[in-house]
């Protein structure tokens, strides 16, 4: 196996799951978002999103804060420093893997 492809074995499995990857990518890009926005953005059920967020919170990649905007309660989610670093590292590794893959000539 080439060294580039060996990096696949070292990928962060918490981030690598598709739904969590969507959450991390979006939070990395937009800063913070609430539960309802993420749910609508990805078309996930409340339970499904909750479980993925719980997993990301457990690994301290995502900070979940219950707050208010006016009288409306918001469940705000944002990446922690650890989460941002982990995501950046994940992207670097994936970039190496992508470079090792054959180019799409279509």
């Amino acid at each position: 196996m080439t060294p580039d492809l060996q990096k696949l074995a070292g990928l962060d499995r918490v981030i690598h799951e598709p739904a969590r990857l969507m959450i991390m990518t979006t939070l990395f890009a937009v800063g913070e978002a609430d539960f309802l926005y993420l749910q609508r953005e990805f078309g996930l059920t409340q339970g499904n999103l909750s479980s993925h967020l719980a997993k990301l919170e457990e690994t301290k990649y995502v900070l979940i804060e219950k707050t208010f905007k006016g009288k409306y309660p918001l469940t705000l989610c944002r990446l922690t420093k650890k989460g941002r670093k982990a995501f950046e590292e994940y992207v670097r590794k994936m970039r190496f893997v992508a470079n090792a893959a054959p180019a799409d000539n279509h």
Partner: protein
Amino acid sequence: MHRKSPTAAQRRAWNYWFDDGLPTLVGGFGCFVFGLSFIFDRQPLFRLLLAATYCVILLRNRSIIEWLKARLTYPRTGYVTPPYSSQDELPPLPDLTSVSLQADPAQMAKTASEQHERKQRMILVLAMLLAAVLGTMFIDHPWTFAAAGIDLGLALWIMNGKDFRLSWIVISAIPLIGFSLAIFPPDAMTPAHRLGYFVTAGGLLIVTDGVVALIRYLWRNPGLSVPAE
């Protein structure tokens, strides 16, 4: 599943800010009030009230929009960081390209130059606005309205989709307002009146655009969602 890149996510978050029409509505109302303060220049108290209202809208624009969104938008479709936070207050959020060791230099240069482009765009648009305002006020000729209309329409077109989102109906209607005022000029025109009529009509148009967007948003999202525990 759609392809998710930070650029696409940022773009969707940016669009989301304008989806409910509230920023357009508040901005348009500010223009409307500003224009009225020039028309009612012989009624000092009313003019003072309009000027105070305009100042509040101008200085507290973000708070007003957030207050409205907290009651209308966030309970229906959720909250995401407003676009101006990343543009004006915080350092720009990195994108995937810039965190990659294999980053494409051309893409990185593009990302770095975006803020510079925005500044240049703002200077150009400010110059165009100033030309329209001064021309309308100090050149006493009906066709100045038409020229100012085209100038303002161009300025809005340059900014549309980058700094705010207006419908094409508004952008094309601004020159039409200019031509209407050129063909049917209002009576008793002082320099302040000339500017006032133009800005009031433009503000009313933008408010209408915001109201239409808000109605469409509420139509699509009629009920309040139950917040997650």
